[in-house]
């Protein structure tokens, strides 16, 4: 049997260097596309040269990025099995971050969909869900923990076959100087949960392959994404498909957009956010 080591000539620094360099230019199923314009999967209607982030994240994988105010981030569920757990932070003051309670309370709506804000606890909107063709998302159940995944799948470690969302978030956060205390409850996209009359939860799952949601960064954001099974997903096998992430420069919500004043609450969170941005000079 041929081992992997047998395929490489790495006995000297010169041969090791040549061997390492021979790996460049290969393509994997899950990888970032750099520059972003080189993505094989540009979103329809977006000029590839406008892209600032292009990546495929494997099931069980994670990614993170700092994006400018006015960036549109499109998440696409290739197979209908992705579950994009998302945390967003004000990149300038990261203690301002996603607050799931305000995110459902202020719009008077538990279910995320087009037009829904991702609010901080500071009276501002960090991102707006600007497009959604699934209606299957969740702001109640958060992501998975080591304890849950060990009990459920036997392992939770990032290097294992069934990573937990919290452990992946811990790594993604650390790359921006953030610690576990900087990980509040998250939202997730592409796997829905419904609340019954008695408060009981029903897992509604996915709306199928090829669906997408779009987020608009209303402030400069640190975005953390963990693509792992939803904690209420009843399937015994760790099931999670690839997630496509594409982002491009656009403009934040302004008075020209109908959503700016769609509700009294929306009007005030856009006003507060614009007020903050103006004072910061961004």
């Amino acid at each position, binding site marked *: 049997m041929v081992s992997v080591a047998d395929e490489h000539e790495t006995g000297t620094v010169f041969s090791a260097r040549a061997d390492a360099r021979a790996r460049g230019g290969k393509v994997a199923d899950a990888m970032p596309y750099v520059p972003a314009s080189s993505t094989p999967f540009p979103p329809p209607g977006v000029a590839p040269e406008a892209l600032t982030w292009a990546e495929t994240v494997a099931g069980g994988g994670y990614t993170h990025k700092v994006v400018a105010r006015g960036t549109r981030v499109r998440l696409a569920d290739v197979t209908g099995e992705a579950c994009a757990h998302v945390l967003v932070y004000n990149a300038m003051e990261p*203690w*301002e971050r996603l*607050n*799931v*309670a*305000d995110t*459902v*309370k*202020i719009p*008077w*709506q*538990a*279910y995320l969909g087009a037009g829904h804000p991702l*609010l901080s*606890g*500071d*009276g*501002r909107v960090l991102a707006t869900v600007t497009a959604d063709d699934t209606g299957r998302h969740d702001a*109640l*159940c*958060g*992501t998975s*923990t*080591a*304890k*849950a995944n060990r009990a459920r799948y036997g392992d939770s470690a990032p290097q294992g076959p069934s990573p937990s969302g*919290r452990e992946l978030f811990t790594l993604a956060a650390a790359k921006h100087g953030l*610690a*576990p*205390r*900087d*990980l*509040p*409850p*998250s939202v997730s996209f592409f796997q829905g949960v419904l*609340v019954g*009359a*008695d*408060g*009981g*939860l029903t897992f509604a799952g996915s709306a199928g392959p090829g669906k997408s949601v779009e987020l608009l960064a209303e402030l400069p954001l640190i975005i953390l994404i963990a693509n792992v099974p939803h*904690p*209420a997903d009843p399937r015994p096998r760790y099931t999670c498909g690839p997630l496509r992430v594409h982002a491009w420069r656009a403009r934040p919500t302004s008075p020209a957009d109908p959503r700016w004043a769609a509700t*009294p*609450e929306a009007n*005030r*969170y856009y006003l*507060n956010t614009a007020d903050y941005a103006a004072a910061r000079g961004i």
Partner: protein
Amino acid sequence: MTVVTDAAGRTPACPLDLRLVLDPDQYAAGTALVLAGPLADGDVLLDEVVPARAPWSAVVAAGDVLTIVDVGANQSADCLLYSADDTAERYSVPDTIAWGGNVYVRTGTVLRSNEGNPLATVIANEVDRQDTIGGACGKESNTLRYGHHTAAEHGCRENFLAQAAAYGMGARDLVSNLNWFMNVPVEADGTLGIVDGISGPGKRVAFRAEMDILVLVSNCPQMNNPCNDFNPTPLRMIVTEGAA
């Protein structure tokens, strides 16, 4: 001088003059104040009345029980829990909901941490359901909900920040919370909101600490929604020693 006692002859501690704090004339007309006792047997280790609008905190040792009394009826007690040994491990709304399979908190609900570990278990509850999805009010979120003219009003986020600071914590340590005695129904289409309460004078909830926990409470000062019936009233906090 009059001394205020409960039915068992006990006088709770209070940072303000208890006679004033329990004087019905301090509150909306018709307010009844009921100083109910603990929901668990055992020696009383701590017994305090939290004045309207004030924060409160205490460490509750593993096995001990905290009873919270809704003295004046429908007074939201916004509540956060932390592992006393490592406050990076703290109450988690989503873990509590996902493990329990229900958005409402009732007797038997395990209040879980962000690591999925039990921080406390609700062992007795005199209200049909307790809230954990409505979050906390605050000066900034009040501007979204009610208008910028409410920005000067004190909120639970401010109470939490003030109390957290005493333990070396700050904004990074505030997460979504429990709201004892607050009523947040979720309609079939996902519409949710704070509506009239379903508690009453002297109704109680009690939870047993499953590890040593730091409990932060904001006695909600909100005056723009029915989370405290537009009438902030006191809470009573009683810690009883668990069975050995």
